[in-house]
């Protein structure tokens, strides 16, 4: 058709993969075409289960035995499908290398990192041991691992997640591959570490000139990295285009929905655009367009036959109405139904506009729901297997201040290990904290009697991150939702009346009360969790990463629900998340934690638009934006290294080891201040709701 002279580096044609299931084969990939040219980055996005990983694994011939594969995968014109295992192994690692989501699975735990990388070198190159080791050190240096010579002798478990991911990239590029396949390489990492690793991937690509196939569910990551993007749904590519084109003018309703569903760091307010329904069941797909059940544009002809991937040069979409979308260029909210959010009924939230609730001067007049000051919690660090000796302390929380008023949402942000969950558990214990003071709804937690504590439990409920783990798998959801009511000794009739009411309130069918958690999808389970938390009409809901286990399109629905419930019931939320975009979208105030301490807090737009603490600034700059143009134009503040270990109590500022401001301080006296004096959480002006714990804040 086209007159390309150059054969593409990698050409996948009509790839089909089926897995053996209990009731016959279940398709995972259903006819995928991909083309990767030399040196380019192809991004693959889609919800979990859409077949992204299986596609990537197929290229390497790494599928399990239960899979059957059809179609063609050509590397430089050479067919890989059907190649004997030995020849595939020679290509794997040499010409095509893979970076996995979980780097622990790629390293053998009992061998040193250096030996494993050196071995990867020696498999494909005729060099001696010493040379291979030198090469390994060079590679570790290239991916930014400090003291590479020493790192060679470390074991995988001695590395942090980010370091392991770098080491795996080092191993992947050991033989100058032509293609790097990265399957969700940063999904398990914190944003600042993610930014580092993505940077390393760019470096690696630059150094080796390899093409990169980047699989991710995160549109922001894709926007920042990819040249071209393929969107997958139900085992097929439903749209593919250049990255700018795709984000600016999507031609498939699914892509449009995905873009609308992501909460954004830049700009706020308004409900998100949830894609209704759940991903198509792969075991029994409908005839016709697999997206039809969720598509607001669906017509009769959509269910007649599955639309082919079609369109003009470089921008293809598998939708019968793609031409129309290309012409009309609607915004996501114009296509997908967006729920109306009720106005807030919070007692003093006069205007009803969330932005002004926290900003308005009457904040002080509203009842405090939660007031925490100087909270601290240490865990003993034990050593020895038989006789446990205490060898030190982990300062998990070391100076947290929180302030939450009625009807507000306080976002608590911080990287993993910064002490967010410990803080929550300290609050929920309803007992005297180790140090500091907790005041809940006007009660001092230290002075509660048992009966008072039990009563207070009803005012304070929690929603956990992983709905599958937090719902008893052996209880029907009706019983699960009734549990807090039973714990508060509610009458039988009250329980029987409340359960269907609650299920309806969170958008579930009350008739499903007799079903068990595993019969629901992730988003629905999180709704069950929310219903359970609401059962006893609490005043404060503690949400511990409530949406981070969910796909974006599902997440949007849950976030909208939370916003609606808050307005309707006048709840206050303490919302913990590592995702700053979600916080920005939902919270009125935000509190940023680093190494067990509150480093910055204040009204959300003040903190996000004018961050004062260097850590907050770095955090914000590390969040990928789902907008390729903006993403390219940004300056990024890359933080060096990992957070230090919380087993040491640092004098002075705990952020010093990674602080770019401190690193840039010329005056030794100024540096000494950071080293010796612990910065207090103070504001620029007392009137403003915005404080930072830094000696040299940005003003």
């Amino acid at each position, binding site marked *: 058709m086209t007159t390309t002279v150059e054969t593409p580096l990698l050409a996948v044609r009509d790839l089909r993969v089926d897995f053996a299931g209990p009731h016959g084969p279940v398709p995972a990939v259903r006819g995928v075409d991909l083309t990767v040219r030399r040196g380019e980055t192809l991004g693959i996005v889609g919800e979990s289960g859409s077949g992204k990983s299986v596609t990537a694994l197929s290229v390497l011939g790494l599928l399990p035995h239960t899979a059957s594969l059809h179609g063609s995968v050509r590397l430089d014109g050479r067919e890989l499908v059907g190649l004997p295992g030995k020849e595939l192994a020679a290509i794997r690692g040499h010409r095509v290398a893979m970076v996995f989501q979980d780097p622990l699975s790629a390293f053998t735990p009992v061998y040193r990192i250096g030996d494993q990388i050196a071995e990867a070198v020696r498999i494909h190159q005729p060099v001696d041991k010493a040379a291979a080791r030198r090469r390994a050190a060079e590679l570790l240096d290239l991916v930014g691992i400090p003291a590479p010579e020493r790192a060679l002798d470390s074991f995988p478990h001695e590395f942090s997640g980010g370091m392991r991911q770098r080491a795996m990239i080092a191993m992947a590029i050991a033989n100058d591959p032509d293609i790097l396949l990265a399957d969700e390489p940063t999904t398990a990492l914190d944003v600042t570490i993610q930014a580092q690793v993505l940077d390393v991937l760019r470096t690696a690509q630059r150094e080796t000139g390899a093409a990169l196939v980047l699989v991710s569910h995160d549109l922001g990551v894709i926007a920042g990295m990819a040249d071209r993007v393929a969107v997958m749904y139900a085992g097929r590519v439903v749209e593919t285009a250049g990255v700018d084109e795709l984000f600016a003018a999507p031609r498939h309703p699914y892509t449009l929905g995905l873009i609308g569903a992501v909460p954004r760091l830049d700009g706020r307010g308004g409900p998100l655009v949830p894609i*209704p*329904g*759940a991903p198509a*069941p792969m075991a029994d797909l409908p005839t016709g367009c697999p997206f039809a059940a969720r598509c607001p544009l669906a017509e009769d002809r959509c269910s007649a036959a599955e639309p082919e991937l079609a369109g003009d040069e470089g921008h293809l979409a598998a939708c019968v109405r793609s031409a129309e979308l290309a012409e009309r260029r609607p915004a996501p909210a114009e296509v997908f139904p967006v729920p109306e959010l009720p106005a807030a009924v919070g007692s003093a939230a006069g205007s009803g506009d969330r932005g002004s609730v926290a900003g308005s001067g009457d904040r002080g007049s509203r009842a405090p729901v939660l007031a925490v000051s100087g909270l601290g919690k240490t865990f003993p660090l034990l050593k020895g297997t038989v006789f446990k000796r205490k060898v030190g302390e982990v300062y998990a929380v070391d100076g947290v201040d929180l302030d939450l008023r009625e009807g507000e949402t306080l976002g608590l942000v911080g990287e993993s290990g910064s002490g967010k969950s410990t803080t929550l558990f300290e609050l*929920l214990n309803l007992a005297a904290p180790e140090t500091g003071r907790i005041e809940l709804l006007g009660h001092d937690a230290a002075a509660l009697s048992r009966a008072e504590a*039990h009563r207070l*439990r*009803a005012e304070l*409920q*929690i929603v*956990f991150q*992983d709905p599958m*783990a*937090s*719902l*008893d*798998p*052996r*209880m*029907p959801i*009706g*019983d699960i939702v009734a*549990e*807090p009511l*039973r*714990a508060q000794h509610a009458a*039988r009739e009250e*329980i*029987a*009346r409340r359960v*269907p*009411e609650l299920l*309806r*309130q969170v*958008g*579930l*069918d*009350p008739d*499903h*009360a*007799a*079903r*068990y958690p*595993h*019969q*629901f*999808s992730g*988003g*629905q389970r999180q*709704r069950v969790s929310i219903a*359970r938390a609401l059962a*006893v*009409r609490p*005043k404060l809901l503690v949400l511990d990463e409530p949406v981070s286990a969910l796909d974006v399109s*599902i997440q949007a*629905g*849950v976030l909208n629900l939370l916003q609606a419930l808050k307005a*309707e*019931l*006048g709840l206050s939320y303490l919302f913990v998340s590592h995702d700053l975009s979600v916080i920005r979208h939902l919270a009125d105030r935000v509190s940023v934690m680093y190494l067990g301490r509150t480093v910055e807090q204040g009204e959300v737009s003040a903190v996000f638009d004018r961050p004062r603490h260097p850590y907050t600034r770095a955090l914000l700059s590390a969040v990928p934006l789902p907008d390729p143009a903006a993403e390219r134009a940004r300056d990024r503040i890359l933080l060096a290294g990992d957070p230090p270990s919380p087993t040491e109590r640092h004098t002075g500022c705990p952020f010093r080891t990674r602080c770019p401001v401190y690193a840039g301080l010329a005056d030794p006296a100024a540096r000494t201040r950071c080293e010796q004096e612990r910065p207090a959480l103070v504001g620029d002006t007392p009137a403003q709701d915005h404080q930072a714990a830094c000696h040299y804040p940005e003003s």
Partner: protein
Amino acid sequence: MTTVAAEPTAPPAAPRTTGRGRLVLTRLLSARGAVAGAVLVLLLFALAFGGPYLTPWDYATPDFGALHQPPSAEHWFGTNGIGQDVFAQTVRGLQKSLVIGLLVALFSTVLASLVGACAGYFGGWTDRALMFLVDLLLVFPSFLIITIVSPRLKSTGWIAFVLLLALFNWMITARVVRSMTISLREREFVRAARFMGVRPLRIITRHILPNVASFLIIDATIAVGGAVMSETALSYFGFGVKAPDVSLGTLLAAGTSEAPVFPWLFYFAAGLLVLFVLAVNLIGDGLRDALDPTAGGPRRRRSARRKKP
């Protein structure tokens, strides 16, 4: 915070309780194996307690005119070496063994699950004390103790014997339950219940035990057969069930050596024991599936996924 209550919501009447208990029962009743097992156990009980009325012979009184007779119209299961009617003996033995097997399994499982779950859940001091008890009982030669104690308990009869057997039969199970509980305790759903103010014992009964139920049930079904057999061993040494009284165990012990020549002395008792253990296993399997919602239930699968989230 009265907004919700003010909403004109669902008809408040008709509290359809679809709690777990009822769901499990429904699933159990629709599992064919479990129902068959239960029917079989009921039939065995009917035979054990109704059987003596069907025959004119008494299990103890010998018929000196018929020694070592094979089954006949007179003596349905034949007679033994001293002319006792094997049918009368077998149903009498069945009475004892059914009761001993089921009760010992029940008592020891309940004890094991409570002790194990409490030790695992509360940890610390409770754990140490309970595990010390378990270890103590484990190192005690249980048979020796039963031998010493059981003569003194003669007057209290078989129930004391059942309790004794149960008392020496739960420790390993308790240890396993404890370690399963320790890992369950840190699971989020247990934590969630704790933060909701659910009391510890309720958490144990409503969350911990159902989640170790598969293990407990398998263990209990094995314990039924085990109890019948350990009763045999004890009876063999002259404790527990004493002649002229009989149990399936004593009958088997007596009949084993004679089985090649006088098969009726062995096979009727053995067959009933096998039936009994089989029936218990069927019930156990059914119960396990009924408690485990992921085990392919009789109806409703998947369709929940279609609902909009």
